[in-house]
């Protein structure tokens, strides 16, 4: 379709071969930078899992490792958040976005050196930042704990990636700009805006008083909604149709979803401060915007469901599809839950309870992380030109991750609701409420163990495929079965 030879014989094997070779060339060109981002993302995922387990165990066993300053809860918990948010999630997202950009621009990736430099800097920034948090140099601003020098390195690395994205887009082959590219550009455009504004207003020239909290949550929520969410949706909008071999049900809805997300999301942050000492109109505006988020979420949910309809059997055969669809379903659930949590009546109950932590993990793990796993399962074999060596490891990863995250979300949601109801009742002593949360926190630690085991299976799979172990198999989609190499 995009190559000259195909126009003469649109369906012929020659055209198919030309397209297959074009695609293989694009995938091969992405190999080094994307694998660099994927590999380091997985390493950070393991590091983040260890911090998560430490923090979870400390909630039920406070004396555990409590005599090492570096491993106290106040340091391990932000180390977990930053290792998984900037080390795992952002790094994986950038890797997926790079590959999608090259595929959707329909040209081999150029300027790979910019990306390699960006990957090295990004990892350096995260490593310095996490170490600084453990050493006690945290900024103590949620989602922004990295000290200035680490944040600066991340920003420079990010600037490299943004410049690369613009260069790549300018060199694309003419044709339609697919909806995934809109989401990626949205994300690449919003993140520097968020990160530079929040750093200038909270770190370099800090504003005073409750405005700090407003800016903090404007940033904290937008990182989820305008950075992680668009990249996961970009991946889903590519993976589901591509794996099924079926165009998206309604392209119109997908475009509507993008522009309505762009319009409503950035108002949402204020719902973290409901009942707090900030202007009431700001709280009301953020509640309205949070409920308006139902528009992009419903359009996306309808679109994915209608595209999947009749093809659910493929969930048995495609690992990438299974992870991606799990993530897409959880996107609907977590977003609807988020809109409901912004309502004052429910917020009064759930605020400052474990319910919120359950919601955060439903978003960042069940939705975002599972979608990234799906994308990595699709992309990596096409870069390495080797099929995943072990179906068992993939199945183990899926079932450990899905049952682990469900156990975590269910236990934190129920535990959080009980906690919230009891906090509303002045007759229940505070320590009784704390004691009532402990069984749910134990369940959370166990869920963390399941997730971490799943991550080990995934990391092992990734190392094995990089080493090209196992029998040689034809990559499922690199070439058609009728291919004959020149």
């Amino acid at each position, binding site marked *: *379709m*995009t190559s000259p030879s*195909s126009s003469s014989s*649109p*369906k*012929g094997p020659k*055209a*198919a*071969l030309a*397209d*297959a070779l*074009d*695609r293989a060339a694009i995938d091969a060109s992405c190999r080094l930078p994307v694998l660099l981002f994927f590999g380091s993302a997985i390493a950070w995922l393991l590091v983040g899992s260890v911090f998560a387990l430490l923090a979870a165990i400390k909630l039920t066993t406070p004396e555990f490792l409590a005599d090492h300053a570096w491993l106290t809860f106040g340091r391990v918990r932000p180390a977990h958040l930053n290792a998984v948010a900037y080390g795992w999630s952002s790094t994986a997202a950038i890797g997926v976005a790079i590959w999608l950009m090259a*595929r*959707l621009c329909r040209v081999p990736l150029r300027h790979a050196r910019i990306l390699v430099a960006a990957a090295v800097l990004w990892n350096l920034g995260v490593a310095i930042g996490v170490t600084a948090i453990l050493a006690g140099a945290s900024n103590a601003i949620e989602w922004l704990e990295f000290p200035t020098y680490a944040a600066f390195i991340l920003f420079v690395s990010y600037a490299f990636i943004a410049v690369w994205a613009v260069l790549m887009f300018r060199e694309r082959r003419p*044709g*339609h*700009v*697919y909806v995934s590219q809109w989401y990626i550009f949205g994300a690449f*455009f919003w993140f520097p*805006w968020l990160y*530079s*504004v929040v750093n*200038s*207003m909270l770190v370099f*020239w800090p*504003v005073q008083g409750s405005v700090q909290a407003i800016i903090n949550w404007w940033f904290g929520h937008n990182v989820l909604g305008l950075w992680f969410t668009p990249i996961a949706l970009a991946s889903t909008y*590519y993976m589901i*149709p*591509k*794996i099924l*071999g*079926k*165009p*998206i049900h309604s*392209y*119109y809805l*997908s*475009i509507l979803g993008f*522009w309505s997300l*762009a319009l409503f999301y950035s108002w949402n942050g204020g719902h973290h401060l409901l009942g707090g000492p900030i202007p009431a109109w700001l709280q009301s505006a953020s509640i309205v915007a949070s409920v308006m988020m139902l528009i992009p979420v419903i359009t996306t949910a309808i679109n994915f469901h209608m595209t999947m309809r009749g093809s659910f059997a*493929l969930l048995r*055969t*495609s*690992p990438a*599809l299974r992870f991606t669809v799990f993530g897409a379903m959880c996107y609907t659930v977590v977003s609807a839950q988020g809109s409901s949590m912004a309502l004052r009546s429910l917020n009064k109950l759930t605020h400052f309870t474990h319910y919120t932590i359950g919601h955060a993990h439903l978003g960042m793990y069940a939705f975002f992380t599972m979608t990234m796993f799906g994308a990595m*399962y*699709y992309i990596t074999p096409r870069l390495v030109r080797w*099929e*995943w060596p*072990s*179906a068992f490891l*993939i199945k183990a990863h899926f079932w450990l991750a899905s049952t682990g995250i469900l156990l975590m979300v269910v236990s934190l949601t129920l535990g959080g609701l009980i906690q919230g109801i009891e906090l509303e009742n002045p007759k229940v002593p505070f320590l009784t409420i704390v004691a009532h949360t402990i069984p749910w926190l134990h369940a959370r630690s166990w869920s963390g163990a399941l997730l971490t085991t799943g991550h080990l299976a995934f990391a092992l799979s990734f190392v094995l495929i990089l080493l090209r172990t196992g029998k040689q*198999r*034809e990559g*499922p*989609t690199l*070439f*058609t*079965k009728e291919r004959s190499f020149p």
Partner: protein
Amino acid sequence: MTFTLVALFIVVVAFTAIAIGAFGWAAKTGQFHGLEAGARSIFDTDEPIGRPTDHFPERGRKSKASV
């Protein structure tokens, strides 16, 4: 403080201008037309509509044979 406000104002204006520009560019270059063709733009003659492109490793040969 004044400096921060001025800097922020510039950032706000610049980002809003870029967003409006992007929307205008999309409308002008026909990104909102021919939407169904847009949905088909990720397929090609080698991976056409109607052919699934992913499977579990162990089932590779079987599904390849059945395609």
